[in-house]
């Protein structure tokens, strides 16, 4: 049985009340700080372990004329070398559609695409051997940018449209019209633990794969598919990931499949761990977007019509881009009512690595257009951007989204006003205006932006989850479920849910590693859904056990089952108090089944892709952030001086973990919009290819003043303990920083104009925006 303090009474770790709603520490916290938490690469290495590296395409687009691997095969330490034809089953490892080849066949479609793979006695030997290949590739013309793809109408999937009314006419008839475009760059996940899988051959000719994956069931399915096995011959196991952020939803499978192919071919255990330099080149990232919008509004800045063109850079295959560009479209309104609108989403095909899920899943790319638009409107009608935002929010009577779902819980008007009060928004706005009038080089910027994020997989069938709960004869309990732990605290919350549902202490519950042979056919831990769906499944399993034990005690004590209660490890019936352990023992002796499964499917969700209408989300999670920045007009350099956040997690299951998600999501979003610049050269090579030139935030980038509060209001939908999902939504709170930087840039033109500013707002981009504002002021 796990103890909160890991058996070390002297460790001084605070103990807290172990129920839903309390600030329990992460279930692995002590293992994290002592180095005992085991990640895939930390597992004791089995004898004869082989290591994998791949030979990569040097060109963005080409036809393989010949691949001579003779020298590779002869290199020191090399045990096996494979090309696409050596894959026994289906080499296609696409998650949804087709095109993602484990190894390139006749053509290569991005720089870094694996053409062959080597298994050797060490990683160094495998890497060195890869260099000895002689590749003859006929280079073909490559499409590398969104503009090129749009021009050539090169798409990985068809374009979709959300349409309400006649946006063009509404805009044309409006008193004010604005038109703009923006380039919004992608983002490298930079999970601290790189992609890794370990494959162990089994006696049945199958494989046991230990993976760092958000989607063990897909790993299992694809490993079986590349090997030509039945799914039941493959077990996938995930105890924890060193970060995922969407980057290990579909991308982890390739490593597992490659390791598995070698494991079956050689009969030896095989590890495939990507060094950071490969991970940054070979795995998909957040999509670049090119957004164009045109909007019509009245003199108060209230929208009458909005047209948006959102083009996502999908890379060479579809991967998850169908849903990602859909979600950019779903969030192109962010929190604002578009009475008449047309939103087009383009899935551009380029000869670059196939982009993939990343916290927010396209949502941030739509939202930045909406937030940019709000600021543009505010400058045009000369109102405070916050007032324009408040006036455009959804509300009763103006509640239908561009995809037909109605917003039912209107929290944001109150949340934003409360945050404006708590963070002294209007007072600071005055002070900042005064400061900016007097200061020539340094200027301040301020912005308060909302987030409304739809919760549910937009692929409806994924909204299901299972759990498996065992009670053992000593009263200890183990729970297994389909979700994976990537640091978000899912296992902790599941244990809290089971403890609370059963009425027993948290210490009794052990959450065991996610395995496909315990709970099958699971959905990825993605779309912020981990606790929502797996928590409900775990709760249902716990309720079954609770009912069985209660019925057993009721029968024994001859009382109605409703009069049996379980709380604090004590079962009470007919005035008698029975220790939980004793009840379990006697239930076992009386042959009561002490194991149960749970299953959950999210209600109310449906969506018709073709018409672009439906009810894709069970509910919305909301938040808002106010950011203040100080900008140097001579260089574009800046500091984020203060951030205040108010976020809606419904009734929190664990406020400490939720605040951790909000803070971490905000900083990650801020990084995407400030220092993290994902760049490619004109030959399709990622040039921001290492942490030396791709800069995620450090502790110095933490705002000097940083306050996060929870908006304590239960979910109006029947979710797990009335909580709300928290994984993705806070990322988009980072938009407040981007808007504040643009606000500061605008001050260089006395707020007469909003200078264009691409994302991320590196010092260089801010400098350009300031130069453009200054040029406007000079010319006017």
């Amino acid at each position, binding site marked *: 049985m796990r103890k909160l303090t890991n058996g070390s009474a*002297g460790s001084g770790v605070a103990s807290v009340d172990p129920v839903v709603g309390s600030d329990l520490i992460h279930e692995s916290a002590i293992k*994290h700080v002592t*180095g005992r938490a085991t990640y895939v690469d*930390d597992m004791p290495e089995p004898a004869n372990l082989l290591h994998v590296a791949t030979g990569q395409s040097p060109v963005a687009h080409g036809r393989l004329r010949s691949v001579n691997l003779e020298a590779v095969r002869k290199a020191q330490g090399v045990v096996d070398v494979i090309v696409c034809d050596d894959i026994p089953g289906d080499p296609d490892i696409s998650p949804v559609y087709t095109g993602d080849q484990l190894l390139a066949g006749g053509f290569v479609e991005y720089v870094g695409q694996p053409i062959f793979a080597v298994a050797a006695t060490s990683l160094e030997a495998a890497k060195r051997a890869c260099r000895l290949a002689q590749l003859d590739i006929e280079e073909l013309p490559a499409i590398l940018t969104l503009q090129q793809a749009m021009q050539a109408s090169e798409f990985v999937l068809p374009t979709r449209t959300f349409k309400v009314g006649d946006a063009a006419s509404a805009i044309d008839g409006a008193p004010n019209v604005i038109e703009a475009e923006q380039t919004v760059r992608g983002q490298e996940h930079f999970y601290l633990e790189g992609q890794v899988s370990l494959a162990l051959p089994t006696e049945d000719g199958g494989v046991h794969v230990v993976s760092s994956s958000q989607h063990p069931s897909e790993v299992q399915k694809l490993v079986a598919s590349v090997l030509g096995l039945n799914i039941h011959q493959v077990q996938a196991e995930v105890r924890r990931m060193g970060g995922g952020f969407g980057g290990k939803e579909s991308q982890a499978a390739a490593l597992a499949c490659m390791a598995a192919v070698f494991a079956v071919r050689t009969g030896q255990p095989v590890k495939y761990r990507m*060094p*950071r330099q490969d991970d940054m080149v070979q795995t998909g990232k957040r999509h670049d977007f090119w957004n164009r919008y045109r909007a019509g509004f009245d003199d108060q800045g209230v929208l009458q019509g909005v047209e948006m063109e959102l083009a996502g850079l999908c890379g060479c295959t579809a991967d998850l881009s169908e849903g990602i560009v859909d979600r950019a479209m779903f969030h192109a309104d962010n929190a604002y009512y578009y009475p008449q609108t047309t939103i087009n989403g383009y899935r551009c095909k380029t000869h670059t690595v196939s982009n993939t899920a990343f916290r927010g899943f396209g949502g941030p790319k739509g939202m930045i257009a909406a937030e940019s638009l709000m600021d543009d409107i505010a400058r045009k009608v000369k109102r405070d951007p916050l007032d324009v935002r408040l006036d455009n929010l959804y509300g009763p009577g103006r509640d239908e989204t561009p995809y037909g779902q109605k917003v039912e819980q209107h929290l944001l008007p109150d949340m934003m006003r409360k945050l404006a009060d708590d963070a002294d928004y209007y007072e600071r706005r005055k002070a900042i205006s005064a400061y900016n009038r007097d200061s020539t080089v340094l200027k301040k910027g301020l912005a308060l932006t909302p987030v409304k994020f739809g919760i549910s997989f937009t692929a409806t069938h994924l909204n299901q989850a299972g759990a498996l709960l065992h009670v053992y004869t000593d009263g200890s309990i183990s729970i297994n479920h389909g979700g994976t732990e990537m640091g978000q605290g899912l296992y902790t919350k599941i244990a809290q849910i089971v403890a609370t549902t059963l009425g027993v202490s948290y210490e009794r519950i052990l959450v065991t590693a996610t395995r496909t042979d315990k709970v099958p056919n699971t959905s990825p831990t993605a779309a912020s859904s981990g606790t929502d769906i797996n928590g409900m499944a775990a709760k249902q399993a716990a309720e079954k056990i609770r009912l069985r034990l209660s019925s057993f005690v009721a029968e024994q004590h001859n009382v109605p089952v409703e009069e049996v209660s379980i709380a604090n490890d004590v079962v009470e019936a007919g005035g008698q108090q029975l220790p939980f352990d004793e009840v379990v023992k006697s239930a076992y002796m009386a042959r009561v089944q002490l194991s149960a499964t749970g299953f959950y499917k999210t209600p109310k969700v449906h969506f018709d892709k073709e018409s672009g209408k439906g009810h894709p989300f069970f509910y919305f999670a909301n938040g808002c952030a106010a950011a203040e920045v100080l900008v140097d007009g001579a260089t574009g350099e800046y500091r984020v001086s203060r951030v205040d956040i108010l976020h809606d997690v419904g009734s929190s299951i664990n406020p400490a973990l939720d605040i951790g998600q909000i803070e971490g999501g905000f900083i990650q979003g801020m990084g995407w919009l400030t220092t993290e610049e994902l760049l490619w050269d004109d030959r399709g090579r990622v040039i921001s290819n290492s942490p030396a030139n791709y800069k995620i935030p*450090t502790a*110095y980038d933490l705002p000097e003043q940083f306050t996060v509060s929870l908006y304590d209001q239960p979910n109006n939908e029947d979710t797990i303990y009335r909580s709300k999902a928290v994984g993705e939504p806070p990322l988009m709170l980072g938009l407040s920083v981007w808007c504040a930087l643009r606000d500061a840039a605008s001050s260089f033109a006395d707020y007469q104009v909003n200078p264009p500013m691409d994302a991320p707002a590196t010092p*260089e981009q801010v400098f350009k925006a300031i130069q453009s504002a200054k040029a406007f002021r000079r010319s006017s």
Partner: protein
Amino acid sequence: MKTCPNGQELKFVLNNQVVELSASADKTLLQAVRELGLTGTKEGCASGDCGACTVMVGEQSGDEIRYHTINACIAPVEQQAGKHVVTVEGLQSGDVLHPAQREMVNCHGSQCGFCTPGFVMSLATLVEQGAPAEREEVLQGISGNLCRCTGYRPIVEAGLKALQAPFQQPIEGAGLLQSLESFEATSVLQPTTEPELQAAISQQSGAGLIAGGTDLMLEVTQRYQSMPTLIDVSNVESLKSVHEVDGSLVIGAAVPYTELETLFAARSEPFVSLLHRLGSRQIRNSGTLGGNLANGSPIADTPPVLIALDARIELVNTAGESRMLSVQDFYKGYRDTDLGGDEYVARIHIPVQSLDAFHRFYKSSKRLEDDISSVMGAFLFEGSANEITGARVAYGGMAATPVRLAAVEDALVGEKPDAGLIAEVVSMIASQMTPLTDVRASAEYRSAMAASMLERALLEFTGEDRPVITEVQLHA
């Protein structure tokens, strides 16, 4: 130099055990400790950028053992001979967590946990060093640790709380350090005097010189080159010391940046401020001025500084002959220096009067901390607001080598730095250098920043207050 019989193994203390092993020069400390089963120390990048591999290293210094952090992923294990290496597994005393561990737990400072051992080691080192419980200390201490989950707030809080905690017992294993009788490494030669170093260079032709290894080791970890033998200059006493001789500050090439921060604390605030943005704490604990010069990079932070300060480089050859040359003369071309195959960078001589003159160093980068310069500007002006009598203007990141702009200097000297002159010299910048567009910045932005830096320095020289908001806040 202690020469060692073949097959003798290097000895160091790892947590509370003496470890003996033999390894090639290019085997990293990270690989070694993980092979020994201590998998708490992680590989996040293998390039010294993320800090997941941070360990604490203690060295005997007089009666005490001084601890600092390093990136184990780019440190040869052989360089640890005779030292006390503490990993995350070595912090706990029985069941009792180290304050850094305990507060990381209490403050919810870990999420996915992969970066956590590195943060714990950085914070624990601050505790062991007796650092004051100040936010700036914590930020400096973890400047080389990346976290992708938490957003850092709880980690900073944990650091502050750990530093407020009462004194705790010493790290286990420290006592074993004195018991190490011999600690020779076999593949990383460790001369302790310059004659030994000179002999090693002549005998091992082709063996690289290593000090901190923060750049050199990337050849191994990123490009999979093998380096069977290295010559470690970091034990040569005369290369690790600092003297003031004949009006010059003479700095040994192997003095780590962290020591320079202390050395320049009272002498040059601009330099100390720049040092706080050079790499990270872990890098500054290992990296040296000598290494920054010898690798010949055009984007190194310190060469423009040294040019502005009129520093001279002392090179010594295997015959023990030394020659002096100016920093700008040292650079021949892109990654090409005047350093001969039989020479090493021995010392850097900085005239004290330069440090007394007005000087400013500005760095432009995407991220404030631990980022490579897109432009580095260094300026020294003598005279007054009525007349500039001396000027040195140098840049990094603007050409294939660090450059000095004589034309700009000539235009300034003998003139009154009024608005007209400032505008004139600032407008000269664009024609003086043709920088590249690369991953760090565009050519246009580089030129604009180079101009902006010059303007700022001149305005400050004439008394105008031009605050630099990206300057790291220094505590008193």
